[in-house]
């Protein structure tokens, strides 16, 4: 049956070392637990995690929520942020993993993409090259999250209209953000209004949504 594929692109560059990466792990596991309490999510949700620093790692390939085992995400003490390269890897993954509808089989729901970063792309040229390609994948939603004062909202705005800016990457802010992420993922299960429906739930108050 139809799956809802959700991709997480997580920045593990040197600047995330220390408290931020701890907070990210904590928030992610909170989010997975929240989703596991939702029967609708368990019915259709598939998750993938890709991390990027100097290297791009597919930490978990697209996996059904029930079998999803979250590993500890680590990062080097220093190094560049290869966001462009990450998008390149993502592009290939989405192209092969997300099932398109055919005359024989129902396709997956439009995938969702969440990008979390605390800096700016070190491989700017590749990043810009990848943007139209990513857009061509027809994601249901692309949400970029910029954490901390070094994160560049403008750069992310080139990729998506939905940029969430977190002033800090501390544990409670990230938790709130990922709560909102799980709300976004679960949005499809709620009552639909008679007027055109909104794709994203309103973000929690302590987060700045750059639109």
């Amino acid at each position: 049956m139809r799956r809802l594929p959700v991709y997480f692109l997580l920045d593990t560059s040197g600047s995330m070392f220390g408290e931020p990466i701890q907070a990210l792990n904590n928030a992610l596991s909170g989010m997975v637990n929240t989703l596991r309490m939702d029967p609708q999510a368990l019915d259709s949700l598939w998750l993938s995690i890709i991390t990027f620093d100097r290297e791009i790692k597919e930490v978990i390939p697209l996996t059904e929520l029930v079998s999803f085992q979250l590993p500890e995400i680590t990062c080097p003490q220093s190094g560049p942020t290869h966001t462009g390269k990450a998008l390149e890897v993502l592009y290939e993954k989405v192209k092969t993993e997300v099932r398109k509808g055919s005359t024989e089989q129902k396709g997956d729901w439009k995938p969702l993409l969440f990008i979390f970063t605390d800096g700016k792309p070190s491989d700017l040229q590749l990043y810009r090259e990848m943007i139209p390609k990513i857009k061509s994948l027809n994601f249901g939603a692309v949400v970029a999250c910029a954490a901390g004062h070094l994160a560049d909202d403008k750069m992310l705005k080139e990729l998506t209209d939905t940029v969430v800016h977190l002033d800090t990457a501390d544990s409670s802010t990230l938790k709130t953000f990922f709560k909102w992420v799980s709300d976004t993922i679960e949005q499809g299960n709620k009552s639909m209004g008679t007027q055109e429906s909104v794709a994203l739930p309103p973000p929690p108050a302590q987060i700045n949504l750059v639109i």
Partner: protein
Amino acid sequence: MSKTITVSSAITGKSYQYIDTGEPMRGGMKDVFFSPDKTYVVAFYRDIQDYNSRERLKKIVTQYYDAFFKKEGGEYYKNLYCWPTDMIEADRKVGLIVPTYHKNFFFKKGYATSDLIKGKEKEGKWFASAKFRNKQFALRLDESELGNWLSYFQVCVNIARGVKRLHSAGLAHSDLSYKNVLVDPVSKSAAIIDIDGLVVPGLFPPDVIGTADFIAPEVLSTKHLDIKDVNRKLPNRLTDLHALAVMIYMYLLYRHPLKGGKINDLDTERDDLLSMGEKALFIEHPTDTSNRPKIGQLNPKELPWADIMKIPYHVTGPYLKELFDQAFIKGLHHPNERPPAEMWEQALLKTTDLMQPCMNPSCEQKWYVFDNTLSPRCPFCGTRHLGTLPVLDLYYQFKPAVWKPENHRLMVYNNQYLFQWHVNRNITRNEKLTAEQKVPVGYFTFYHNKWVLVNQKLDSLKDLTEDKIIPINEMVELTDGKKLLLSKEDGGRVVTITMANK
């Protein structure tokens, strides 16, 4: 930081309190906070409510509340709904006071393998999906949460009654869904929540079109039209009846009646819209087989339920099969043909009279509907019934000396009871039965190798075949072809006995 906030009724001025944790539970439209003693919640609409909406809410908590619950029999309905009791206004925000759900509707155990959902609400989806009862699924529900197949009949009867009562008051729920109907197969209860979306025809239009999986085809196929367009179809009593039929099908068969293998468009969103809307087609349609589920594409964790060849919908018995045909074949695109809630209630109840306990002690369903064959077997585990099986067909007096069949059959099993509603056709088995009418009038038992009916309360039980009165506290043997008059009063029925599985 949590703070306790006091608010007051927009109607009476009565004050209420809630604890603002900063992290309310979020519904589709509302943010929900508990009162300090957790006996009620305060649910705030996130959006500003206009005059019309406030008037509607006011009516729901006053006029309709009184009409439903402050009348004779009102106590019964309190268990079927979670009805808002008051409306508040604070900082231009409108909120409702809603009683907390009964404790049966929170998981005592939850998952078989962890405590993750212990204490969480039992929304319907948990019990409508085959995965959560599959032993191979890591996050399956604990057996103690699942009930048996018969439990779901009582659950569905309660849902049907809740919908019936709303409709008889001229109201429509407009958003019956997993989230809005809580289900507990353990206590065999159900409660309709989110009553605030109630639609009053002509007076208050709906503000939601419903929840995916339950939206009626005509609502989806006109979704693109402007809300003021005369051809736009919005939720009403008839769309509730679609949602009710889907719900009953799902709680008995753990699959969706319209989600099959047919591709209507290569684009997922458009395909979904067509498959549930304009091009909706029953997966078990007897002649158009184009929407049959494709076995190879099913999630193995959803088997055997997802396989309509293994568990076809006629395992729910003849009365329900007929209603499913009416709802998903005739009425799918012709809303007026959909069976009303009361027909579902009666068909579910009559079906329980056709049920047999499965002889296999480890059968997961425990009960099945007699399949009308001479050698019955459980369709779920395949176990054959051993021994004879008396089948009682009910007749009513059409005119003196002429008896006609009721299309109602009672299957006998050891320690099965006979009730007033079997004996007399003037007594309907519904929520209006008195306590006295719920007391059995006799029971069936297999005694010294014979099937007998022991008379407990019938003062004019007569064996017509042997022309013999059976007094109270005596018994009569059930034999093939025998006729019994259950009561000589007006409305009293005759039963004829057939022995199956001889």
